[in-house]
């Protein structure tokens, strides 16, 4: 029995079973020198699963969907990361997986009560400011990492969850208007536009163009949520119509664009297979070699290519585990987002928060998978939870926590319930 009164035995069992079935594949098809490697991997995965489930029992929340999905995805990705090239144990990735779960809980606790967040929003603007400053001071104009000696941190990854947080708003907050030069404005919206502008300029300065679409997607969602209130000149139909028209214009323009523009957009990686296109060509060849069911864990050759466990991790999984398993991993992340559609948040703040977090996840996955498969320009971004990288894992953990906050809120019930005035139903009834 969990705290919300439901029994999760079946789900626990299935999650465990899905990890065990993957471990069975490692045993059967894996490439390992000694049987010790897969045994250690199995032991750690199963033990950590059991520990996670045990801890979950003590968490007081209404829903556990996100937690179970997250445990499923994270241990799956630990198995993936452990098998690239040869079965071993990806200790670093495992530690970051635990950190991601902790961050998820932290993000959940942080955003559970939105009134506290909204009254102290300046703190989060402050955090973003500090992160931006740290980028300006420490990474240099073409870098993204800060080297702390024992570990490298990527501050721009941490900006993402906090940016999502400041993009979220409640309806009440939007009513907090001030009169400036005869126009009623919400200060927060203008601050947000400013912050967006600063972040965009910063990304440009760092040449971290991969993160740019992610921030733009979040800012776009925030914008959509705000223009409906309080001065809604743009109706929903108009927005949809305009975006459809915009998309059509882009498609037509691309079709009839002069050749050199199209060449820019569609880089022919195969014409320079051993030069700049090498990474992507190897990745695509790896998918083709893997087929539906893959070569088996540890039997791939893509791990030799740089960024095999981050930027082209999707293809690396395709090669060793097959396209179907790789698609399933992506499907799990999609379910993570879909769960917040099924179990809708009860407040506007959490809706905007969940949408922002979904925008980050979807943008990151799309940029990574479609980019590495040469459907859109290739930028080095990570797939949430699947790619290796501590900063990204922790940031995504926080975002998952935001998603959870929308579903698993424990609503405060008044200690001393008000007694309704006696006999009010009769008093107020008006019969036609």
């Amino acid at each position, binding site marked *: 029995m969990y705290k919300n009164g439901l029994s999760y035995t079946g789900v626990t069992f299935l999650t465990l079973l899905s990890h065990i079935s993957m471990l069975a594949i490692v045993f059967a098809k894996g490439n390992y020198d000694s049987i010790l490697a897969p045994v250690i991997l199995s032991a750690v995965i199963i033990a950590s699963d059991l520990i996670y489930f045990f801890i979950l029992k003590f968490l007081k929340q209404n829903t556990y969907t996100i937690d179970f999905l997250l445990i499923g995805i994270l241990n799956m990705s630990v198995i993936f990361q452990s098998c690239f090239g040869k079965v071993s144990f990806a200790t670093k990735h495992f530690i970051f997986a635990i950190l991601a779960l902790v961050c998820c809980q932290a993000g959940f606790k942080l955003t559970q009560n939105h009134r506290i967040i909204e009254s102290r929003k300046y703190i989060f603007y402050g955090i973003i400011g500090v992160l931006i400053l740290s980028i300006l001071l420490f990474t240099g104009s073409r870098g993204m990492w800060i080297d702390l000696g024992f570990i490298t941190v990527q501050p721009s990854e941490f900006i993402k969850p906090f940016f999502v947080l400041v993009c979220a708003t409640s309806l009440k907050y939007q009513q907090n208007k001030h009169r400036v030069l005869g126009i009623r404005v919400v200060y927060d919206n203008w601050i947000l536009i400013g912050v967006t502008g600063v972040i965009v300029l910063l990304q440009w300065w760092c040449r971290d163009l991969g993160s740019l679409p992610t921030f733009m997607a979040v800012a776009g969602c925030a914008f959509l949520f705000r223009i409906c209130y309080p001065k809604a000149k743009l109706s929903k139909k108009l927005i949809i119509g305009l975006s459809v028209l915009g998309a059509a214009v882009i498609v037509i323009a691309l079709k009839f664009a002069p050749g050199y523009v199209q060449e820019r957009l569609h880089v022919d990686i195969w014409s320079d297979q051993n030069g700049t296109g090498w990474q992507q060509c190897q990745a695509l060849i790896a998918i083709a070699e893997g087929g539906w069911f893959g070569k088996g864990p540890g039997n791939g050759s893509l791990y030799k290519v740089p960024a095999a466990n981050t930027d082209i991790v999707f293809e690396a999984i395709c090669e060793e585990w097959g396209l179907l398993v790789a698609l399933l991993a992506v499907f799990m992340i999609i379910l993570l987002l879909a769960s917040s559609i099924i179990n809708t948040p*009860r*407040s*506007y703040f959490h809706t905007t928060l969940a949408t922002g977090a979904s925008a980050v996840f979807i943008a990151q996955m799309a940029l990574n998978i479609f980019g590495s498969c040469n459907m859109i320009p290739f930028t080095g971004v990570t797939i949430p939870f699947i790619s290796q990288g501590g900063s990204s894992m922790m940031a995504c953990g926080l975002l998952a926590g935001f998603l959870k906050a929308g*579903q698993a809120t424990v609503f405060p019930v008044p200690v001393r319930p008000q007694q309704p005035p006696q006999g009010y139903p009769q008093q107020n009834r*008006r019969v036609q």
Partner: protein
Amino acid sequence: MDGFLEFMSEFANKLSAFKEILSAAALIIIDVCALAIVAFCSKEKKVVQAQWSRAARHMMLTDYDENFAFTLNSEEILMGRHISVDLRFPDMSVSRYHAMLTLEDGIWTISDLDSKSGTYVNGRKIKQIRLKPGDEIKIGQKTLYFRRKRA
């Protein structure tokens, strides 16, 4: 220990005979697992709904003129004439964004959003007030009753 490892390698050898079946089985199990978790969502939804109803004190808005009841299902409910609001009254006497109901710690509050015709509770023009069950709310020419849902 050595005996265990030997057993495991023999086990792995036996497993490798069923490679294809294992692959297919793993796919199905992961699939079923993911879908089962999400299917559980709908069960959890009921839990959340029950918790919410307790927190929102089972309140709803009713309009006897048109015989309809609006269950208060989220923390903030915008009322007005605009198409994007939660509770819409296509009546010219109602402003586009007229008033807003908010729930905070189990207490429902109504606040006027600078509407043209004002918001009245029990006949008094108000800016912001806590609602009690049985209150009569007047928005433009619409009269609504804030009351408890019957079980």
